[in-house]
């Protein structure tokens, strides 16, 4: 087994990242974490995570940005809010996970070919196009992009949905598509500024 250095130098901490974590919506109590691990213990997905939510919170507030943004943990969060509901220090762990997902997408530091970020992006593309999400299209599209073998695996489910009349072929779309785009574009104008600010801060 190759040797791996696990010690960290203080210079490896990204303090701006730690400040950013504290500044995000939901991150306000993060400094108060007592590392009790309730979030991890209540999380139904922590059994698969490379860092338990508790460890991730600790890494994030300390500014270990690379570890945090490249972690699987944030992509495994199913946003069931169990951690947030019970955290004794009222840390909004789920909201922090969301913010970390967004940051990871923005910085392109999520694990490659890992389908969740792709689903998320695809989802927003669909909404921009139609205003609604034809689930079947979304799933098919996703698998074709990431792992078409899986797509074949899903054919059984597709047939079942077809049989029970739960499959829609024509993507439903709304009347006010232009209106929706204007709304989203207006936000984009603002958030582009925000993005620049984040980059500058980093």
């Amino acid at each position, binding site marked *: 087994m190759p040797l791996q250095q696990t010690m960290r130098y203080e210079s490896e901490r990204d303090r701006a990242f730690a400040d950013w974590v504290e500044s995000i919506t939901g991150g306000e109590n993060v400094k108060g974490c007592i*590392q009790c691990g309730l979030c991890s213990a209540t999380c139904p997905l*922590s059994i698969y995570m490379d860092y338990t939510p508790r460890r991730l919170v600790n890494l994030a507030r300390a500014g270990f940005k690379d570890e945090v943004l490249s972690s699987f943990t944030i992509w495994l969060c199913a946003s069931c809010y169990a951690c947030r509901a019970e955290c*004794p220090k009222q840390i909004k762990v789920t909201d922090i996970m969301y913010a970390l997902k967004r940051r990871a997408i923005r910085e392109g530091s999520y694990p490659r070919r890992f389908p969740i970020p792709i689903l998320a992006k695809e989802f927003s593309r669909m909404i921009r196009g139609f205003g609604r999400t034809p689930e079947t299209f979304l799933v098919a599209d996703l698998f074709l992009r990431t792992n078409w073998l899986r797509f074949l695996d899903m054919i059984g489910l597709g047939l079942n949905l077809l049989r029970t009349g739960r499959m829609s072929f024509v993507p439903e779309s709304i009347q006010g598509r232009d209106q929706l785009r204007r709304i989203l574009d207006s936000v984009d104008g603002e958030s582009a500024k925000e993005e620049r600010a984040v980059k500058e801060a980093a």
Partner: protein
Amino acid sequence: MKSASNGSGPKIGFYICHCGTNIAGTIDVEAVREHAAKLPGVAVSKGYKYMCSDPGQEMIAQDIRAQGLERLVVAACSPNLHEETFRKAAAKGGLNPFFFQMVNIREHASWVHEDKAAATQKAEDQVRAAIHRVRFHKALEKKRVPVHPDVMVVGGGIAGIHAALTAANAGKKVILVEREATIGGHMALFDKTFPTLDCSACILTPKMSAVKGHPNITLWAYSEVTKVEGYVGNFKVTVKRKPRYVKEDLCVGCDACIDACVFKEAKFPDEFNQGLSKRKPVYLSFPQATPKVVTIDPKTCIQLKTGKCKMTCAAACDRKAIDFGQKEESKEVPVGAIILTTGFDAFDPKRHEYYGYGRYPNVYSALEVERLVNASGPTGGDVVLRDGRRPEAIGIIHCVGSRDEHTNKWCSRVCCMYSLKLAHLLKERTGAQVYNFYIDMRTPGKTFEEFYDRLLKEGVQFVRGRVAEVNDWAMTREEEGRLVIRVEDTLAGFVRRIPVDMVVLSQGLEARKDALDVRRIFNIGCGSDGFFQERHPKLAPVSTFADGIFIAGACQGPKDIPDTVAQAGAAAAEALALVDAGHVEMEPNTSRVVEEECSGCKSCVPLCPYSAITFDEAKKKASINEILCKGCGVCAAACPSGSIRQNLFEDDEIFGEIEGVLS
């Protein structure tokens, strides 16, 4: 008034305290001193490192004498801390102590602001206000009022017992009021006490009998304080004595009535045993109950509920002590000082739904387990589960209702240690695998860490992590039919599922449910945590904002037995210092009616909560009884013709302050 060095009006001395760097570190004290020096009337303006020190006080006294100062202003800490100190300094210099005004630039400025310029500005403004105000001050005198020598202690747990004995041993008459049928409190429930593992009963019961036998102590158990009137040194306390339906002076606690009760079997949950056993309607809480007098529970006694019982109990009593006609009594007693030792409530673990207390029978509260391991408890100290099994694995969950924003934010301070104690006892009695689930292990007392070390070596398992849930859904064969604890082993960095047969929830300590009502009766404060508020966390830990009322033990905050006993001794000493002085001095901030200005409109009369204002029908004017007045100033604010003046808070003084602060 003599004219001052610059400007007219009285000659004012101004002093600013640096308080080491506490003030000078944030406020430019020299700038404030200079600012004050230029204000009209200020003859002396000085700074000093510690104004409250002897040299600081001496400097003031000397300046008053040498310079003929007529008013004194000191900018330092809170008047709640040192107002009295500087009044004395003024008096020492020959100045009436009320020609003094204090400016709080520490608690209200240097400690709470970071911007030095802004903090200095604030200090200057507040100093100017005081200097404007102090010109209007009048010479006043404190009233001396005699003090009643008796002491009341409310709450008969270990704190109350110790405080009562201490005061009684000093020769004071003490009335000890206890709500329950017996004194002893929570300590009487325990088998062993940490970290020495000495037997709780062995050290407590001698003190309980000492209370009973003490010639200076009147014990009123099964009684509650309902009203407190009066003021420091002269309280009038009303105590409700609930009927036991047993004559206390006749009953010897022989059990004959209990044996004779028409209920052959005990069938009502025994509160003392946390509901783990049953009692009859007529009962004695435990063999060493003090007073050793039985009590009849009106909620379950057939005679008291329906009036149609054969009353076999009464027949069985050869001393004729049972009296179904007993009524509630109300007693009024004068006392000089009151010590509150009303204790704590254990956190109700039902509030943490995810630990399954109340749903899973084998999830126990720590208090239940205290009884379970107690040799005189419901099972005689034999640890068996509700289903009769003997546990092979036991999980003790710390911090239940502690360190949690959803319930109680604080660390309850004793749970780590009593959890260790229970772990030891459970392991000793059952041989089971015992796990402790903790967030942080807190063992800061004398020989506490050594006890922890002992437990580690005894092979008790320690998992650092707050348990997320106790459930009964199995994922593996060994989990089937057992309780599963789900926790992150934070030191290992992964989540674990641990099957156990018994779960112990280490409940935190919280304020009594009725602490808010009690503190209203005694006119004291509660902290945001609900515990009684001490006057100062460090310097007046057993005093309250109500003079003459002291607090000790867990009613002030979670604490263990040694700390409780220490506080109880301290409270007794404070109470003794008060009553032994023989008199108290009252703040002269009372209100008065300027008779020739009063129109007799009677507006003020109904506003006074102490009925200190009466209407003189002969003069057709209002008048204020100085002894009854407590100095709130509500009447002065209300008087529509401005004819009521509150000493130290006269209109001119406050208007002066407003003008000063904004000029």
